[in-house]
C-alpha cells in the first residue's frame, strides 16, 4: 500500500459556525462533556473548536468563524519537547499522541501555538445516560495525560484494515476516509484526504488555492510549523480577498 499523508482543507467561506463539527467530535472521540466550571478554569477539552470574532460595530456587524483543530504540523513544536516520546510524527504525516506513554508533563501543550492540546486534569466522567454511547474504537483517556485531535485515526485504521482484508482501494468517493467533523459539516467546509494522492480532493484544492491568486493560507505561518491543515480565506463582496 502506498504511503499516505493526511491533510485537511477548511473553507472559511463555507463555514457558518454551526458547531456541528464540535458536537460530532465530542461524540466520536469520547470527549467528556464540558461544564461551566471547566470553562471558568480554562480546562475545557475540545479537539475542534469554532472561534468567533466580531467585526465592525452595530448595526453593521459581522461574525467571523474559524474552526481550529490540531494542525498536524510537519515541524510540530510539541514533539521535540516531550521527554518520553509520547508525541511523535508517524509515517502518514500525523502528529500522534500515545496515551500509554504520556506522563503528563504538559510541555507539549505549552509549546503549541494553536492551543489544541488538552490535559486531563480529572478522570473523565459521563452522566449515566451517556455511558453506553462511548465509542469502543477510541480509548477513554485517564487522568493525567494529554489528548488532542487525531484526525480520527480509528476511522483511518478501520478503513485501511477493511481495504487490506477485503482488497479494495481507498478513494475519495464511497471508500473515503473522513473524520467525524468532516462527515458532520453541513456546508462541506471541511475536506479531508490524502495529500500524496494527486487525484484527491484536498490535493486539487491545495494545488489551486496555494497559487498566488488562491485563497489558501496556514494558521500562524510565520512560525514555520508547516501545518497539514490549509485554511481558505473568506470571499468578500467588495474586497478581493480577506480573512
Amino acid at each position, binding site marked *: 500500500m502506498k504511503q499516505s499523508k493526511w491533510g485537511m482543507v477548511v473553507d472559511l467561506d463555507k463555514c457558518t459556525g454551526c458547531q456541528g463539527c464540535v458536537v460530532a467530535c465530542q461524540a466520536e472521540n469520547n470527549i467528556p462533556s464540558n461544564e461551566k466550571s471547566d470553562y471558568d478554569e480554562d480546562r475545557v477539552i475540545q479537539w475542534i473548536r469554532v472561534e468567533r470574532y466580531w467585526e465592525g460595530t452595530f448595526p453593521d456587524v459581522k461574525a467571523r468563524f474559524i474552526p481550529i483543530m490540531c494542525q498536524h504540523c510537519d515541524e510540530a513544536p510539541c514533539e521535540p519537547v516531550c521527554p518520553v516520546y509520547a508525541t511523535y510524527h*508517524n509515517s502518514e504525516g500525523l502528529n500522534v499522541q*500515545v496515551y500509554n*506513554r504520556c506522563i503528563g508533563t504538559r510541555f507539549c501543550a505549552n509549546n503549541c501555538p494553536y492551543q489544541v492540546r488538552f490535559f486531563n486534569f480529572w478522570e473523565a466522567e459521563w452522566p449515566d445516560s451517556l455511558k453506553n454511547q462511548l465509542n469502543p*474504537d*477510541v480509548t477513554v483517556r485517564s487522568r493525567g495525560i494529554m489528548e488532542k485531535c487525531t484526525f480520527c485515526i*480509528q476511522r483511518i485504521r478501520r478503513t485501511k*484494515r477493511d481495504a487490506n482484508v477485503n482488497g479494495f482501494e481507498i478513494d475519495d468517493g464511497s471508500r473515503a476516509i473522513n473524520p467525524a467533523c468532516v462527515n458532520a459539516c453541513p456546508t462541506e467546509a471541511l475536506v479531508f484526504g490524502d495529500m500524496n494522492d494527486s487525484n484527491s480532493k484536498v490535493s486539487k484544492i491545495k494545488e489551486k488555492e496555494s497559487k498566488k491568486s488562491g485563497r489558501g493560507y496556514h494558521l500562524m505561518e510565520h512560525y514555520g510549523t508547516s501545518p497539514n491543515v490549509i485554511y481558505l480565506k473568506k470571499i468578500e463582496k467588495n474586497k478581493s480577498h480577506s480573512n
Partner: protein
Amino acid sequence: MIPGDFRVPKISPKILLISCLGTLITLVILIIAVLFVGSAWWTQPLFGFDEGPDQPIAFKHSPHVKDLGMKCTYCHRFGTEGAAAAAIPPVEFCMSCHRVVGDDNKEIKKIRDAYNGGKPIDWVRVHRLPDHAKFYHPPHIKKLSEKNNIEASEVCSTCHGDVASMNKVKQVSPMKMGWCVDCHRANGASTDCTTCHY
C-alpha cells in the same frame, strides 16, 4: 557489677529458634513473591494460574472439534470476520444444533434454559486487552493464513494454543506488548504506535 553496665541479655534457645525460623519463613515468602511477580511481569505467572476460569456452563471444545471436526471459524465467526471483540457465539447459535442434539446432558439443558428464558450466558472472559490496545482478528488471520498457506481456522492455535484439548479454556500466550511487537517485526507488519494505540 556496676549499675547501668552493659550486659548482653541471655537469649533462651527457644526464642532463638523461633526468631531463626521466622526469618527463614519471611525469606522464603519473599523469594516466592519476587518469583511470582517477576515471572508475571515478563510473561505469565509461574504457578497458580495454569487453569482457565470456571465458566457458567462446563463447555468442552474437544467433542466439537476433535470428535465432530468442526472448524474454529464455524462458531467463532462473529469476531473473526469483522467485529472487534467478543468472539463467543450468541446463544441462538448454539441452539441451531442443540435444539435437537444432546437431550440428556445437563450442561446443554443450561443453554436451552438460557435461550428459553431469554437470558444471556455470563461467560467469563479469558483473553482481555487494555482499552488503549486495539486488536482486530481479520488482518491477523488473513496475513498468517496466506503466509503459512493454511486455512483460516488453523491460524487460531498460533496465539490461542491447542484449545481443542483444553478442559477449561485458558490463555497460553502472554499477550504483552513485547510479544505483539516481536511477531509484527518478524512478519514485516507496521510497528507504528498508532497501529494499535489510539
